């Protein structure tokens, strides 16, 4: 079965494990890696007037930085290894955006890593993995 694997990727070690897992699958069965980087963002946050003025500029800078620091290197690395890869950088809530990308790209699976800590914060506010499992339109793999 070949298809697209959406990988939530933020450059961290767990994200790297998730990517490696997905790459193995793609090597075995063919398919494409969709590298997805989400910049956490809520349209309901409060900004100062100065931040409003500079928002568009900052957004451009943040996108550039994410592309340069996190995405580009991995894309080149995967391409060199002969893997077909697409990249997406978007703003929003991580689980929402991953689900949306999976839908748009007709993906077969979403793969994310987790850091394995069941912290109090995650219990109270919920974790990305938890929220994603609840809402994803396709099967999810959480790589420990």
């Amino acid at each position, binding site marked *: 079965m070949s298809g697209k694997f959406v990988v939530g990727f933020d450059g961290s070690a767990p994200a790297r494990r998730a990517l490696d897992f997905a790459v193995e699958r793609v090597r075995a069965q063919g398919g494409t890696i969709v590298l997805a980087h989400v*910049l956490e*963002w809520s*349209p*309901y*946050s*409060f*900004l*100062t*007037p*100065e*931040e*409003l*003025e*500079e*928002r*568009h*500029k*900052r*957004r*451009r800078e*943040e*996108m550039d930085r994410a592309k340069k620091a996190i995405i580009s290197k991995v894309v080149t690395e995967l391409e060199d290894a002969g893997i077909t890869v697409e990249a997406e950088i*978007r*703003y*929003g809530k991580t689980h929402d955006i991953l689900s*949306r990308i999976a839908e748009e790209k007709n993906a077969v699976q979403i793969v994310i890593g987790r850091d394995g800590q069941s912290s109090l914060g995650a219990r109270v506010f919920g974790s990305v993995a938890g929220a994603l499992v609840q809402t994803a339109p396709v099967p999810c793999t959480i790589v420990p």
Partner: protein
Amino acid sequence: MKNFLLSAALAVVGAVLYGTAAVAQDQAMSLDDKVNQIFADSTGWFVSLIFSNFPGTSFPWIVAWLVIGAVVFTVYFGFIQFRVIGHSIALIKGDYSDPNDAGEVSHFQALATALSGTVGLGNIAGVAVAIGIGGPGATFWMILAGLMGMATKFTECTLGVKYRNEYEDGRVSGGPMYYLAKGFEERGLPGGKILAVLFSIFCILGALGGGNMFQANQAHQQISGVVGDYPGWITGLVFAGLVFAVIIGGIKSIARVTEKVVPFMGILYVGTALIIIAMNYHLIGWAFGQIFAGAFTGLGVAGGFVGALIQGFKRAAFSNEAGVGSAAIAHSAVRTNEPITEGYVALLEPFIDTVIVCTMTALVIIITQQLVTDPETGLYLLNEAGTSVRTIGDTSGVGLTSAAFGSSIGWFPYILAIAVVLFAFSTMITWSYYGLKAWTFLFGEGQTKEIVFKVIFCVFVVIGAASQLGPVIDFSDAAIFAMAVVNIIGLYALMPIVKRELISYASRLKSGEIKKYQ
């Protein structure tokens, strides 16, 4: 920059030393009194010009100017404020926002920031001033002015987005100075540049007055009401230091914390007001009776029903700033291809600010019976000078609001004191930005030029905190209304452009060309 910070710090220390020395030298006349005297003397002419009455009446022409403007826009746009609320809310929820624009300024954010500049002391202290002078009847006129003002806000914020400047580096700047200059040119009308310059001058004065001194003044009154009396310049210096840290030192975290806490304070304030009203539910009917009776008879207040009307209109305008043009500066940063959508969103501002929050303050003051009435005639008793209604604790301004809330919930004045200080602070930050935009419109952008304005702004924090309420509130009102004089001339000239936008948008919305994303 470092040298500059150092010299500024020295100047502050110098001011403290000077203040201490002056207090020691001159027991008879304190520093506060001196500042107050100089301030009142130097601004009096401006205040009397703006607030001069129509010949032979006691009706200030400026109040008529604002109300006529609001009525004209309401009629011209077919009572827009009562027709589009549903769509406004859909826009704020993001139903019509392109998901690919996530990370840009949303309608909600533009509205929230503009609101944090308007919801503040005007709603707490300003309303108390209005009720104190104009009696309960002022509430009626205040609500009416708030409803009409929604159309004014709609007009100015649409123009703010339409004629904003979008710079190469991605920054966005807008506001009356831009639409006056660019819009007049587009329509081939003369004088746009002159109006833009005038507006900018008044905007700087308004930022220093209503956006700064009035805030500092009322914050000091509130703090000294809780901890006991002490000289105003001390509060002034502390506030000036914090404002300095944010706008010059670039310590964003302070501003960010305030921006986050202020909305909750607002909700807490309205919530508490509702609880107090509910506790006195048997008086609700009576309170509205007082409001309606007072609106048309005055119930014995100074100036009769005209006094109530003037106070109501004045406070509404001062509180929601509709027609003043300030909010157009904040709203213009929104991400949208349709300027009119920001008008739809902005018209909620006077509604939230005046019709909801201000009315809560008024109801609490009336319902807790802070105003003294003659038991026989039911009319309100005036103070000795005959200028305002006598209150139970002889309070006025924010003190009156505090006493009203405190009479039902004993510990609330402490919360209110914190809320007032935070509201004052966030309003100062927002207005320092408005003032700065006007300043850079006049003098051009550049670090030194901007720092000059910011330092002036900080100095006025101290002056405001040290002055008496009277001269400060007069000057604040006068400067802010002077902005409205210029801005509303511009709105009259440019309203056909808004109408064109409105018709085009409404037809595309109906035909389904503009569609929901969610």
